[in-house]
């Protein structure tokens, strides 16, 4: 209470302070008039200041005064101000850019009152720790059993689906949701209505859809979108709503379309439950998310969930035994059935922020350098002010205010730069993603603005504190007697400058060499030998299920395409397969020798592909043994199960013994045919499946007839390798002429396929970001070297003048300055190399095809630095040789 009263008084004073000041002055004058000796009153100005202190607003006055003064000073030295602001803009800008990314991906809440929104997970108790989804029936029981703790409890199941809004189908993420799903997040739709309870009922099959805001925007943000028909996996769905801008559900990336769970069987065509009617108690594919009633404690929730979990176990032991229900914050980076972890989130954020922080540190070292040089010029000013009674604290505050203004200006410019950079980064992600998704909003919000101010404040303290301390604590009298610029030899200042440059060079080298490692990774990833011949290869990705075709029709469509493409002139050979190397999605199996007692422990993980005729031939793989699949095996319903394996798998199963003719089994297969022996009829060489594997990954191939996969890639080998690109259009046209409804997801050359893949993109992005950061740090370091060398040369003008006058050759002076520049750079490089080796160790897991000690990088980066630094020293050095002795000697 008293505190509030105090502030009201203070505020009153602030509003009427002119009047208060006048009062104070008049009152003191009246008093002085009454005295016989008015001098006895004391210093009225000082006393008035003291009295004002009592009002509690002095700091604000001081701050305003400091700001005005700082603005004036900075305006007087535009060169310094510009250099400082640009330096800080670069340093702070990269931090804001990265922070926007961290904010969008990890921090910014995706919905209203996020602390009330929790995920409910089904966790196995024996063995403990394994998470699975929740079946619809379990979800309904859970919802009904917890109405007192959850205001809303919703469920969703996210799948890949073909979406056609009139421009041909593309693969996208679709989410089947309960009717109350949108209610959980407290974010009403931008347009239209949510789903109804009737639409949620299983088997209702009411085909309605809610589309994402970006999708609606791409379609011209047309309000007439409601009621429009879109095709999902070939079936028509009516649009009834548009989700709110930025809405992605619980996670990132979000789906592009939401559908009622009741229509599940119409859009679910892939995955474990494809083809089976949805809703069985054993179909654990839902992710459950709910909003707690206000004020519910987590203990209450845990207890209630455990109770429901036990009840479900007792009522349906066949499917629920050994599983309990748990609550946790929804995991926002993926739609996986398990909960996320705050610690993981924090460590990702921290990792991402380390790099830009180093750049900012380099920028700050530059500022320290600039400020120390400037301090020399301002020593007289400081001396005068302190002799007039300016306390050290007050002077430091003044200097820090100046620094803060610079940092805030740099932050503002940096904010602008970072907007541009993050937009560019986001735009470069979209084309390489294998599916269309809703990406998070990286826009401005209060966190980014607060981050900008925070980075500016932190930078001010880092670069400002020490120079301000150094500038103010010095013998006043000696400084007063000095002339500006006169300084004799000040080895301390030079030593500090050199130390700063060494630090900058070392940190720049750290960033540059990290960038170099990523660059090398990107290069070796792009030129990696995939294990098969790339030239003249074309790839077509199709998925008849996206047109709503069932297995029979899908097979027919796939084979028709293969047959038709074989007849296209210029095409040498055509084959078909699931999971072409370097595609993002791949199926896998655990393979073990058939009939082995220890099958589980002997099993080897292998990429599982269904292939058609000539697969090995089209990829340019020789048969190392055995034969290709026969026509009978490729046709559906053949007798014996057969497979072709690669030598990597053969070696894994029977080291040194050969696998041809032996029997294998898949130990993780479900459904009919499980554990059936499969005869190995052919051996092919191994190919790489993704760049992440340093060695070729084992593969097992089964014939088309024995397994149906709707998502397939057609592989073509063209006769004229030079014209492979020209063939793309022809192939696309031919496919459309065969079956218009089957969406063609991708037509590209194998080389482009590898280049445009997510793998290569990641290394490229790493190279780009690290190189950008390294480049900025290099630029800053060069500016630093230039600054220090210029300073040294200007300090020693007289010395150089005398030496020239006494006959020193200008070239000798040039060499001397260059040598000094080279020496500190060399020390910086030495330290930087140690840092770079450490960083290589840390980064090793993210690199591809390069060693953590990469000689090319460890030689090139220092050379670049040394050259830049010598160039930066050269300009001041040349100035040293141009010193006119007569001028130099007169000048001081």
């Amino acid at each position: 209470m008293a505190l509030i009263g105090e502030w009201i008084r203070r505020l009153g004073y602030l509003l009427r302070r002119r009047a208060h000041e006048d009062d104070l002055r008049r009152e003191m004058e009246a008093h002085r008039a009454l005295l016989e000796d008015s001098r006895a009153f004391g210093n009225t100005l000082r006393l008035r200041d003291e009295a004002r202190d009592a009002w509690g607003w002095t700091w604000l006055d001081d701050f305003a005064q400091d700001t005005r003064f700082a603005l004036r000073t900075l305006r007087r030295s535009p060169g310094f101000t510009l250099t400082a602001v640009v330096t800080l803009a670069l340093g702070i800008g990269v931090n804001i850019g990265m922070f926007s990314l961290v904010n969008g991906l990890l921090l910014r809440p995706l919905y209203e009152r996020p602390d009330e929104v929790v995920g409910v997970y089904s966790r196995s108790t024996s063995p403990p720790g394994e998470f699975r989804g929740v079946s619809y029936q379990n979800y309904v029981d859970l919802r009904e059993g917890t109405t007192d703790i959850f205001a809303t409890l919703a469920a969703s199941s996210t799948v890949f689906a073909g979406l056609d809004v009139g421009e041909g189908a593309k693969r996208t993420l679709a989410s089947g949701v309960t009717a109350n799903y949108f209610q959980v997040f407290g974010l009403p739709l931008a347009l239209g209505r949510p789903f109804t309870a009737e639409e949620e009922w299983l088997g209702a099959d009411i085909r309605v859809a809610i589309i994402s805001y970006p999708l609606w925007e791409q379609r011209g943000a047309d309000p007439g979108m409601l009621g429009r028909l879109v095709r999902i996996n070939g079936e028509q769905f009516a649009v009834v709503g548009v989700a709110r801008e930025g809405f992605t559900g619980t996670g990132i990336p979000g789906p592009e379309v939401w559908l009622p769970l009741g229509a599940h069987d119409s859009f679910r065509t892939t995955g474990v439950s494809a083809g089976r009617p949805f809703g069985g108690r054993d179909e654990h594919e839902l992710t459950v998310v709910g909003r707690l009633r206000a004020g519910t404690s987590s203990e209450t929730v845990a207890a209630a969930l455990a109770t429901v979990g036990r009840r479900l176990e007792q009522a349906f032991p066949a499917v629920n035994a050994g599983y309990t229900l748990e609550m946790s914050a929804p995991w926002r980076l993926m739609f996986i059935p398990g909960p996320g972890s705050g610690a993981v989130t924090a460590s990702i954020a921290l990792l991402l922020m380390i790099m830009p922080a180093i750049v900012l540190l380099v920028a700050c070292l530059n500022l320290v350098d600039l400020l120390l040089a400037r301090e020399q010029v301002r020593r007289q000013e400081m001396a005068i002010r302190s002799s007039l009674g300016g306390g050290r604290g007050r002077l430091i505050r003044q200097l820090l205010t100046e620094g803060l203004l610079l940092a805030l200006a740099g932050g503002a410019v940096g904010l602008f730069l970072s907007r541009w950079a993050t937009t560019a980064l986001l735009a470069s992600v979209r084309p390489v993603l294998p599916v269309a998704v809703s990406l998070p909003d990286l826009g401005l919000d209060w966190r980014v603005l607060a981050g900008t101010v925070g980075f500016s404040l932190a930078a001010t303290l880092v670069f400002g504190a020490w120079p301000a301390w150094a500038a103010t604590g010095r013998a006043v009298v000696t400084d007063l007697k000095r002339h500006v610029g006169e300084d004799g030899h000040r080895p301390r200042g030079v030593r500090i400058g050199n130390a700063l440059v060494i630090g900058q060079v070392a940190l720049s080298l750290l960033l540059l060499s990290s960038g170099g490692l990523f660059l090398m990774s990107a290069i070796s990833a792009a030129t990696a030998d995939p294990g098969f011949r790339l030239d003249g290869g074309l790839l077509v990705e199709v998925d008849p299920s996206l047109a709503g075709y069932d297995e029979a029709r899908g097979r027919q469509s796939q084979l028709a395409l293969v047959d038709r493409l074989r007849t296209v002139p210029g095409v040498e050979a055509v084959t078909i397969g699931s999971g072409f190397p370097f595609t993002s999605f791949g199926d896998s199996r655990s393979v073990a020798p058939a009939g082995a007692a220890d099958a589980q422990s002997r099993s080897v993980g292998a990429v599982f592909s269904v292939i058609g005729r000539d697969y090995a031939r089209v990829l340019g793989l020789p048969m190392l043994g055995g034969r290709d699949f026969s026509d009978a095996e490729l046709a559906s319903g053949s007798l014996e199960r057969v497979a072709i394996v690669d030598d990597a798998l053969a070696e894994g199963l029977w080291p040194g013994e050969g696998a041809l003719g032996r029997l294998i089994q898949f130990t993780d297969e479900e459904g009919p045919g499980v554990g059936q022996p499969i005869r190995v009829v052919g051996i092919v060489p191994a190919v790489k499946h993704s760049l992440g594997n340093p060695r070729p990954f084992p593969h097992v191939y089964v014939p088309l007839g024995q397994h149906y996969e709707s998502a397939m890639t057609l592989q073509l080998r063209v006769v004229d390798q030079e014209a492979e690109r020209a063939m793309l259009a022809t192939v696309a046209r031919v496919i459309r002429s065969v079956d218009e409804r089957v969406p063609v997801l991708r037509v590209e050359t194998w080389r482009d396929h590898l280049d445009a893949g997510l793998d290569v993109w990641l290394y490229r992005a790493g190279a780009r970001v690290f190189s950008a950061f390294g480049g900025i740090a290099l630029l800053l370091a060069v500016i630093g070297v230039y600054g220090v060398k210029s300073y040294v040369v200007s300090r020693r003008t007289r010395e150089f003048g005398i030496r020239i006058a006494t006959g020193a050759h200008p070239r000798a002076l040039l060499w001397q300055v260059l040598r000094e520049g080279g020496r500190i750079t060399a020390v910086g490089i030495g330290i930087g190399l140690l840092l770079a080796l450490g960083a290589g160790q840390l980064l090793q897991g993210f690199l591809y095809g390069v060693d953590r000690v990469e000689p090319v990088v460890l030689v090139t980066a220092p050379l670049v630095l040394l050259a830049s630094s010598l160039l930066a020293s050269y300009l001041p050095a040349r100035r040293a040789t141009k010193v006119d002795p007569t001028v130099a000697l007169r000048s001081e």
Partner: protein
Amino acid sequence: MPPRADLLPGTLDVLVLKAVSLGPLHGYGVLLRIEQMTHGALLVEQGALYPALFRLEQQGMLGTEWGVSDNNRRAKFYRLTAAGRRRLKEDTASWNRLAGAMAAALQTRAGEV
């Protein structure tokens, strides 16, 4: 004139409150009243009074109004507020305790403890 003593830190506030408690005063009047009350034994620097007055006003111990002084000049008059009266009482009590304790301590002779 008796020898003068410098003020102990913190004593000016309570002296000002006491002076004003005897009737509203302007700044110069406060000084004169303190001199009268202490029989000129305490030295108050003329100007140092004002920061103290402002501090007390700020704390709500003193109220102010403009009036006319004895020599017909406009002057700001200070009076004690209810809060000021409470503070004066508390401060007086604590001063008396301190002064008593100090006196007792300083009069102690050997053998008494």
